[in-house]
């Protein structure tokens, strides 16, 4: 299976699954944009890939909604980087979205007969 068509991914972004992915990635700890994109790529075994043009606007949107908090962090001898962490509100949204997603996938399985388990 090839990488998911990026146009389709764009549509997915609008639907909200992309939000779920990002929130999940930063759930454990704060991460910067490049790290987030790399983790998505590796965890999906290269099947999901966010471009700069999609990833950052999404990060800013989640930040504006108050689900993520972006913060510049400076380390000695290194350039400062912007790290994104989950806010309390983001954590609640993530829990809710996971439930929804689970229900959705289950329902899809029942309807289409696609069994992934």
């Amino acid at each position: 299976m090839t990488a998911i068509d990026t146009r389709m991914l764009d549509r997915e972004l609008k639907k909200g699954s992309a939000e779920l992915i990002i929130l999940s990635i930063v759930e454990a700890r704060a991460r910067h944009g490049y790290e987030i994109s790399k983790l998505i790529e590796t965890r999906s075994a290269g099947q999901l890939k966010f471009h700069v043009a999609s990833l950052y606007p999404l990060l800013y949107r989640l930040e504006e909604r108050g689900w993520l908090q972006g913060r510049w962090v400076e380390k000695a001898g290194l350039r400062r980087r912007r790290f994104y962490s989950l806010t309390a509100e983001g954590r609640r949204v993530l829990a809710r979205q996971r439930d929804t997603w689970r229900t959705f996938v289950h329902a899809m399985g029942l309807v289409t007969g696609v069994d992934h388990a």
Partner: protein
Amino acid sequence: MPEWTEHLRPRLAGLRLNPEREAEIVEELSQHLDQRYDELRAGGATTGEAHRLALEELREPEALAQQMRSLRQAHIPPPITPGAPTGRALAGLSQDLRYAARMLRKQPGFAAVAAVTLALGIGANTAIFSVVYGVLLKPLPFHEPERLVAVWHRAPGLNMPLLEQGAATYFTYRESGRVFEDIALWNIGEVSITGLSEPERAPALFVTDGLLGILRVQPLLGRSFTKEDDAPGGPLRAVLTHGYWKRRFGGAPGVLGRSLIVDGRPYEVIGILPPSFKFPRTDPAVLLPFRFNRAEVRVGDFSYRGVARLKPGVTLEQANADVARMIPLAFDRFPTWPGLTRKMFEEAGLGPNVRPLSQDVIGDVGRVLWILVGTVGIVLLIACANVANLFLARAEGRQQELAVRTALGASRSRIARELLSESVGLALAGGALGLLLASAGIGLLARLAPAGLPRIDEIRIDLLVLVFTLAISVLTGLLFGLIPVMRFGTASVVALKESARSASDAPARYRGRNALVVSEIALALVLLIVSGLMIRTFIALRRVDPGFVRPNEVQTFRVSISGALIKDPQGVVAAYEQITHRLEGVHGVVSVGLSSSVPMDGNSGKTPIFVEGFSEAGRAMPPVRGYKRVAPGYFETMGNPVLVGRTMTWTDIYQARPLVVITENLAREYWKTPAEALGKRITQSRENRWREIIGVVGNERDDGLDHAATATVYWPMLITEWWTEPIDVDRTVTYVIRSDRVGSPGFLRELQQAVWSVNPNLPLANVRTLDEIQAGSMAQTSFALVMLAIAATVALLLGSVGIYGVIAYVATQRTREIGIRMALGAQTGDVRRLFLRHGLLLTGAGIALGIGVALALTRVMSALLFGVSPTDPLTYVAVAMSLATVAFSATYLPARRASRVDPIVALRADV
């Protein structure tokens, strides 16, 4: 490492991000791309490949902006104006003002026209305000002036809203009053002061002892009057004013204790008043005590002005109530004059009329001044409308600039503030210029103002006037500045796309300026109608028959013969006759007469008249009539015709025959025709004898040309049984001398010599021609007329400039349209008609609106009018026609120019 910024910035440019935020995003994204590049290089890609692949992360050029467009941070940029410091209102303001000054300096012609227009309006308002403030609003120059009251009576039954005080009421109120700290009487008069060099007639202020204390005036030297000075029998004492002391004694302190011969009697000078002392409406030389003899006081003469200081906290109502309580007490304590009864005054409704002293000082001049305030207010509005039009035209030219700035992030309020800074800045410049005009204008006003305008020396540009000027300048600036702001403050990006010319082609664009011009014409019409009505009033007054002819040929002066000079009444008459004959002997004198007063000189009196055979049914007090004492030659010299009968001779007077002459209107009132009046008898008191009417003369306008002629009785100079006096002579008279030499050099001196040849101690006072007296009576009307005419002229000028400006502007804006029309065959006449129609429509609308406003407003000024109705059709039509003519000319010039446009030039100009 490649530089990513050049790829990132263009992608973000359309988002209107705050520059700091944009920099952060560029930084964050660059780091991402750096890391991606490193990773690709580490994976074996060449620099070129790594660069290309990293950039693929950004995908197509619009992708980033597309994703971000819905974000809040890309939508609410804080205002940015190039170079503007943010968040500091005052810093912004000073920057706005500097910017405004720069913009105005770039267009000096525009700025000058606008500033001068405003200066006219603001200057006129400042000048009139300084007058209104100095005369009407400024507190009187006394300590705690709000506690000072004028104490009057009223007698509605005699139709007298203001009846003065008498010695009886004065003593009563002073002794039994509960509301007054003190009360005093005063009168102005004239005295002869002799023994210094030439005999001098000087204005005097007669007072009771409390007056200076009530006004809180401390003498500069010496002391003021005590009760003892004001009591009869004691030594005579006088206080000098500062001006007279300087003038006659050179300010020598040794004058205290010195003797001054006043009306032939020696007065000791006991005090000098400070230079700050000003008495309302008079500038006396000396103050003299009345010295009433309480034992001889009777109720019934009300001929003294009363002034009092209220106790702290006392209201006018309380004061009036207390006076009402005391009026009956006066009748209890003092007898009435013979012929008068307590019942008469009760029937006349004698009551109190205590009012603020300031009201006495100001008099009825307030009405004229407030009308002038309204007038100059209208002039300022017209000036505003003109400048607003200029600003509109200019703002239209700047539409693109404003749109560019809006696009760069300048907020609506910021642009509005900037436009307003320009207009307020300009208005302040106009105000400063106006202040100069005003200070010049005040000098002119002081010269033009009627002699009766009180407190004229208190008119000046002081701090409050400056504050007023500043306030109206700012207000004016906001007023005319707001119009372009409302019109263009919302400059849209659309304007950026359109050329300035096509943007202003829409007819809707003219609506604002059309409305301004219509209001200008309407306001100018109102002022012109007001002036027109004043001109009609003036003409009507000139046409009134005043009771004399050719007043420029009549010299008048007053002569006074005191009891100290000639005691015997017959002797006084003899002196009068001698003087008359000597005056007749002066070269060029046609005739000479004398009377206690001449029309409109303010010396005439009033007295009640009983007519034999008329019972004055049920009324104890008969109506009061004009009162004059005359000697031979008076009517002949004045040129007042004797209708029937004859006038008095010297023999009649020497023998004190009981004879009178009356005016035509009095004769007609009782007997229908003048002839019927002859032989009938009248008297002033039932206790005195009847006097026979021997002649009827034409009416005299004693109370002014704008008042009905006073029904008057002329009593002989020497009269028997005059109230309580067995024989009485009028000791102060006015001589009237008709000659074509009046006004020529040396003539007065010859008259003076003639008087002094009879008695060298007789000073001439109030030396005026009859013409001057008449002019004085018309002074208020003339003053109002001149002021209104000036205002109306300025209004007409500004209004014409306004309509000219609009038509000229519209013509310029429509040059291309004219070109097309003419290219398609329109004739010059057609084009001219197009603009003339526009101008005439505006004028017509303005005139219609103006007539409506004038009809509503001119009623306010009906009190100033005489012989003309506030809705006089002739004035309205004449004014509307002349305004239409002027407006037509103002329209014709630009219309003609527009019609001469060369179509080729016009069309090429716009391509």
